[in-house]
């Protein structure tokens, strides 16, 4: 899986404009919508991410400094996303601690990014709500009739047809 490509797919699905910029530290995905903008950096290893994320962030910001200075309040809404497929658990925790650094940009930093779901989980703060439960009809009556096949059908019909409870009880008493 190509993390860059998957990230662009997800961001475009959420109505971000995305494009790729290649600087001295390699490729970066730039993204922006009505409220946010940011950069996605991908690293081969956790070591590389931990050692170079700050420099890469700075390089991207420097490159776009002019634009950011003219962005007004939106300049506060810059995200730096640092991702690596490396699965080192120990370093994974260190990487996530990067997110608690609030200087310059809001950071999303994750290791073990190997599937599209991993990319989606990492980018969740940038995306609209993903889960949209579709609650359809439950066919209660059909299911209940099937469940009550040993009960006299007249009583079940009366119950579902909103006969009085006393009438339903009477029918049950007559056929018992």
């Amino acid at each position, binding site marked *: 899986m190509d993390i860059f490509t998957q990230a662009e797919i997800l961001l475009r699905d959420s109505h971000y404009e995305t494009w790729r910029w290649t600087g001295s530290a390699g490729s970066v995905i730039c993204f922006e919508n009505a409220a946010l903008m940011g950069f996605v950096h991908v690293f081969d290893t956790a070591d590389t991410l931990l050692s170079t994320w700050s420099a890469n962030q700075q390089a991207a910001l420097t490159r776009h400094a002019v634009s950011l200075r003219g962005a*007004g309040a939106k300049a506060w809404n810059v995200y730096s996303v640092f991702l690596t497929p490396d699965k080192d658990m120990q370093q994974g925790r260190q990487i996530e601690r990067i997110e608690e650094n*609030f200087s310059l940009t809001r950071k999303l930093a994750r290791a073990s990014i190997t599937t599209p779901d991993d990319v989606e989980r990492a980018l969740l*703060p940038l995306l609209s709500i993903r889960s949209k*439960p579709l*609650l359809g009809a439950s*066919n*209660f009556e059909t299911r209940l009739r099937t469940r009550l096949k040993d009960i006299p059908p007249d009583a*079940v019909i009366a119950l579902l047809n909103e006969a009085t*409870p006393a009438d339903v009880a009477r029918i049950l008493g007559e056929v018992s």
Partner: protein
Amino acid sequence: MRLDSIEICGFRGFRDLVQITFGRGFTVITGRNGVGKSTLCDAVEFAITGSISKYAVEKAAKESLSDYLWWRGEGVPDAHYVKVSFVDDDGELFTITRTRESGADHSVDEIHAMLCHSSAPDDALRQLTRTSIIRDEWIAALSLDLTETERFDLVRSALGALEGSEAGSRAKEVVAAAEAAHSKDENVYGAARSRLTDKLTQQSEAQAALSRSGDLSSALQIIGAAAPEAPPELTERLTAGRHALANGRVRLDKMEDALQLGREVALAQAAYNAPETVADREAALAAHEAAQREYQTVQRAVLEAEQRLIREEDMDVMAASLSLLVEHGEQLGLHEDHCPLCAAHRTSEEFAAGLAAARRRITSLASGVQAARDVLAAAKENAQQPSLTLQAVGVKVQAHANELRQLREQEAAHVEFYKQWSIDPRFLNDPDGLEQAISSERGRLIDLERALLVLEASQAVAQISSIESSISTLRSEVENLAQAVSKSKNAVTAAREIERSVRRVSAEIIDERLAQISPLLNELYQRLRPHAEWKTIDYSIRGDVRRFLSLKVGDGLNPQFVFSSGQRRAAGLAFLLSVHLARAWTPLRTLLLDDPVQHIDDFRALHLVEVLAAFRLDGRQIICAVEDPALADLLCRRLVSTATESGRRLDIDHGPLGVTNVITEQEIHPMPVSVLRGLATA
């Protein structure tokens, strides 16, 4: 549908009129503690439901919330009311005004019709405010700190009215109706059994009194001997005794008939076997044999005479034919010296001699017929007397045979009678023994009848009969009532099965729905990230009658006990927000949050802001009251404001006279786009 504006006057801390127009995209309200941020949420809830549910204690020191709904500070408000306006996607306004004096200007049904779909849960308006307004007080109370049952009920309510929820309550009513009918039947049955018990006690006492009477006691013994199979009840025993008496009488009559028959058979046998009768029978048989022999002899003579006559008559016929032939030949005469009859060459002499010889032969043939007739007549005359004799002797022998047959028939009828009436066969040839048995049976029947008369004449018996009659009726009644109880019991069982099935089907549907919203809960949990290690949360449902919803993180751990208070609040928020989003039964797309970040660190507050931003991306209206101006700044920057769904920021504070007012009101404009590309446009 979203909140458009609110107007408050004389309500809680707002003495003077305050009007707030909400941004269609979001509104962030800031203010110090106690300036009335929460009152804005209270006002929305009060306008919709007529009460404020966050105050769980209704009464304290004889005062209740209603005493504090309206302004109680210095000065007098111009009016006391709350007015809340909603606007739908077409721009149509729906306004609810609730005044202190006259309540709401819309009925509950009208408000319900505007804010809820048909599939709304019970008490829908309260559920609507409960799941639309997330207050600081509720984040803990309605999330992780809920009991598992309360949590289940909250989620079920958020899902809206499920198909069959009405059937569930109706099934309960059916169970109640069936149980009431069964209870009634059991009471009637119990009362009948009680009456029966009383009667049985009376019967026992009366029978004890009866047994203490000597005559009655011996009478009972006699009846018991006559009808040993009879039931113990006196009436039954009397009836059985009467039957035994009637049967005994019939049997006695038949025994007497059998005795008569036996005596007749014995007389007939004696007559048939008397010596003179036997000699007479033997003589008749001998005479019959002799007469038969003589009769056969004369009959043979008659037969021979008849055969001889037949032969003679045949020869006479031949002679007559020959005579005609001779006469014809004689008339013709010789013809050229030849015989006209046989064409032989004959002379006249030979022809004449032949004719004479023929005439002699004819005479000889015709002469024997008369003699044979005479012999036959004599033989028949000789046979007449032996025939008469044989006939007379045969009549006598037949008479003796008839006598024997009648005797045998009489004997067979005698045996058959014994069999038919089951009389002891030993008495077949013992009439005297039978007579003795008849005498004994007659005596027994007399004793039995006396015993019956004694009992029937007794007053105790009359009393017992009455009791037994009642007992019989009561037994029948108890039996019928027992059947009715059995039927009504079955009806209760069936009703419970219906109720159980309704509950189970409903529970299954809820389980399925919860399974459907589970990814949403997990997504919000992942977004809020209350814990660094436990990145997902699972739920499980258990229970049948009472339902429990448990939340688990990691290896089945209960977050209620392993999370810090801040983490619990963050996890609780994920739960409440998923409940809010799962509602499909309301068109209202507004989420109000009253200071949701207390006890939450900055990092997790940022996560919450990002979640609210995601809600905004989904087109929902966010109204959020916070104390921290920096957080308000963050919200205003992070929540999307567009040309059609703009944002607003309000700062409220007390004025110089201690009255709450809106100090600043700011429109949050959309941010520039295409900034990074250097094509920025505002």
